[in-house]
């Protein structure tokens, strides 16, 4: 809590501190910066030049302008829970942390929208409006701590996106500081589908490479009248996977349809929120349906009968809200829970057509055997979004590389069956090279051209999202980073 005066010889540090007008709103000492050398993706680490904490859009714009004028690379960061390394300062960036901009600016129930600052935590929005019967639908597993600004950058998904869509389906307007320091507003008063190009869609999921979002208008939804949650245990993964397809083929759109395999179950049961899943089962499905009360019972019965058709060992319906939340806590803390059975993990994020689930799971199994690393599978089975968690120990020489290879092989398997390499975690640093599995050189060049329209000098979050640099500026920066 010290540091009343800036103790640095670097003039930029003094200037940046002057913009945020508070010596406590900037970090520049190595010990403090270390906490920012990675995000939820821990394989790459790099120290930022500084971390600044602006309080409003004006300060963000000034910081951006200063960085531009002085050719300082910079990037935006929220809670730093991203899983693909989007907030890692690869080039020794100035990190513009938006966590102090964490206000809920307004709630407009009549028009079902809310305006938040980017540092506002996802779950806090639902908590602030739930007493009035409303909620914010996108629910990434990290929703208790991740920020809505970060959700916009990554176009975050979540367990309930099967029915309700991902972040982009819930964004009605954005205020953005573009890389030149200009402030622009997209989305007219939160009215959806404005004429012209869909810039909201372009910015959402651009992984912090097109601008810094400083204000967000989101859609809020009325709580469903009723919901029911089911756990189904299978002795065979293929049976479980086929049940997933069959449920959706039956015409049911569950609010969520989640799956965990044996290794994943071992992890969550060894960790802080066990629910007592049997140890010797091959897969568990967590299925939730919601909507008007009338149809729920019937849907649940249909789901139960589909599960039985596919040799389910045991099914149970949550008896009360308490049981339901326990099941969800168990699932939603699944990634972190891997810490209980492995020192490190690497999570992948492939998407495949649902019908290919058994085939891809078998290939992941082979990849695991080949690499000698255990792979746990936790995934949004309903929309074919796989999360293979590759368990490794970074302290053992060579294991990190092996894990990266195995992760890449999983994504290749997804791409080969007609899927893609990321569903909701973003490309970041992690999947840059894997972009080649789904795009050719020309397609990648077309996308970097779009980036250049917003971010011509590429000082903002350079080196992310796309494979080997298409521009000399980037090559220089990558080299610089490599030397450092």
């Amino acid at each position, binding site marked *: 809590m010290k540091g009343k005066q800036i103790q640095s010889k670097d003039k930029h540090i003094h200037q940046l501190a002057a913009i945020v007008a508070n010596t406590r709103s900037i970090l520049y000492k190595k010990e403090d910066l*270390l906490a920012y050398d990675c995000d939820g993706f821990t394989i*790459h680490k790099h120290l930022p030049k500084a971390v600044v904490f602006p309080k409003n859009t004006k300060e963000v714009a000034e910081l951006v302008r200063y960085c531009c004028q002085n050719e300082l690379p910079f990037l935006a960061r929220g809670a730093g829970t991203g899983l693909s390394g989007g907030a890692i300062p690869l080039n020794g960036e100035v990190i513009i942390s938006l966590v102090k901009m964490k206000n809920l600016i307004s709630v407009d129930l009549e028009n079902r929208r809310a305006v938040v600052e980017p540092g506002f935590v996802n779950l806090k929005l639902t908590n602030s409006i739930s007493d009035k019967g409303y909620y914010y639908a996108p629910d990434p597993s990290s929703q208790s701590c991740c920020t809505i600004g970060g959700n916009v950058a990554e176009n975050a998904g979540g367990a309930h996106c099967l029915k309700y869509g991902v972040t982009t389906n819930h964004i009605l307007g954005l205020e953005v500081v573009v890389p030149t320091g200009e402030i622009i507003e997209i989305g007219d008063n939160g009215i959806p589908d404005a004429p012209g190009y869909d810039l909201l869609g372009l910015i959402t999921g651009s992984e912090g490479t097109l601008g810094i979002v400083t204000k967000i208008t989101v859609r809020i939804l009325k709580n469903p009248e009723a919901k029911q949650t089911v756990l189904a245990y299978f002795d065979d993964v293929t049976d479980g996977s086929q049940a997933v397809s069959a449920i959706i083929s039956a015409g049911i759109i569950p609010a969520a349809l989640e799956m965990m395999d044996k290794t994943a179950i071992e992890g969550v049961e060894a960790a802080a929120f066990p629910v007592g899943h049997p140890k010797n089962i091959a897969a568990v499905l967590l299925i939730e349906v919601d909507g008007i009360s009338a149809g729920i019972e019937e849907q649940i019965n249909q789901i139960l009968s589909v599960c039985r058709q596919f040799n389910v060992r045991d099914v149970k319906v949550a008896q009360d809200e308490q049981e339901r939340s326990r099941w969800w806590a168990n699932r939603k803390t699944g990634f972190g829970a891997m810490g209980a059975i492995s020192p*490190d993990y690497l999570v992948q994020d492939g998407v495949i057509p649902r019908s290919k689930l058994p085939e891809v799971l078998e290939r992941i199994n082979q990849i695991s055997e080949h690499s000698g690393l255990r792979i746990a599978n936790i995934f949004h089975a309903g929309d074919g979004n796989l999360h293979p968690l590759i368990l490794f120990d970074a302290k053992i020489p060579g294991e990190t590389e092996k894990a990266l290879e195995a992760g890449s092989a999983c994504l290749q398997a997804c791409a080969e069956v007609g899927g893609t390499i990321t569903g909701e975690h973003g490309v970041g640093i992690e999947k840059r090279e894997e972009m080649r599995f789904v795009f050719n050189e020309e397609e990648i060049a077309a996308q970097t051209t779009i980036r250049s329209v917003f971010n011509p000098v590429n000082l903002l979050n350079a080196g992310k999202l796309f494979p080997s640099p298409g521009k000399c500026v980037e090559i220089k920066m990558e080299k610089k980073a490599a030397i450092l």
Partner: protein
Amino acid sequence: MTQSAVKSSPACAETSLSNYFAKDHPDEKKWDDCVHCGMCLESCPTYEITGQEQHSPRGRVHLIKSVAEGKIALNESFSDPVFACLDCRACTTACPADVDVGGLIEEARGQIRQAMPLKGWKGNVSKLFLQGLFPHENRLNTVGSLIRFYQKSGLQTTIRKTGMMKVMPKHLVEMEAIMPKVNKPVRKKYKKDQVLKAKGESKAEVAFMTGCIMDVMFSEINEATINVLRRNGNDVTIPEKQTCCGALHVHAGDRETGKKLAKQNIAAFETSEKIILNSAGCGCMMKEYKELFKDDQEWYDRAEAFSAKVEDISKYLYDTGYEIPKSELNTKITYHDACHLAHGQGVREQPRDILLHIPGVEMIHMPNADRCCGSAGIYNITNPEMAGEVLESKMANVPEDVEMISMGNPGCMLQMAMGVKKYGKNQKVVHTVQLLDWAYQKEDQEAKQ
């Protein structure tokens, strides 16, 4: 994936580069569980206030690991985030992988104090309290008597009138203002009694750990605890050799004194079957004694056996059964979870259940009841500014219309009383067991009439 980037990862064990001292250093196994997911962030009061990740649980774990990897030294900039931690353990509750952040923080503090002993004013004050006062029953009693004299003689009133308070730092003035009325410690009072017999048939014998500050500053709570235990069929002993639990020492990085005190308590309670206390901070420490003896198998085993016997009064009553009072108290209250009870020992429902079963008690839910109040041992003395901010958000959550705030820890009681005074509220701050005792007393009085 560029080669350089892969190499910059901690691909091999770098323990040989460690900047820690060889003995009693932070335990690698503890940070190995942390995968940096960030689920702890919002649980952390200091992260909430600063928004800075070096003041977050995962940031601190990252820094503690970085010292072991030789990336940073045991210096002031490392010490800052480590000592700004409230050690409230809320992160342990939030963590999917059960990372023992509190344990790591305490170990790291031990290392920092070895590398950079406190000097000057701070060093003297810390020495005076931690080594010169808390472990010594007689000296504590003397202080207690002085405070009693200060309060009873009218000196308190005089001093407050003379304006002497104006020259004291603000947070100390605030603390003086809420000093509880000090009575005679139970350890002194019952010195001659071998066993305080149960009222009626005796079902069990329990040993009572009075706590050092608790017994001097809050002896009426100790009195209430003894009453409640005896009323519910427990013979109560107060082993004479017991001493301060050492929590404040361990929190401050003085692990050597902590160990000494732990050994004394382990020996003092060796023949006891059950050890009951009413102070969450002491209870949590005593349940973790073995952490202090990782390099000493004999004491490690003894500590483990000792800890298994330690129980908070509310959990003990809840588990073994107790008499539901028959008289009505007619009051509206709210309950604050002491961190070292809720996060530290997982005791949440039991005290609430006890309160709910007192006739006439209406419980109003306090939002974020398990959020730290900022007391955190002596944190409110060492980090008054941060403690003040933590207290402010705590007080904002106290429901408007309650008459009492109940809790299970003396540190919290002092801090919350300060909050009540500071923010112009008027709730009475009470210990859960006091309310139960009052209900019993009322019942007895009514029976007499």
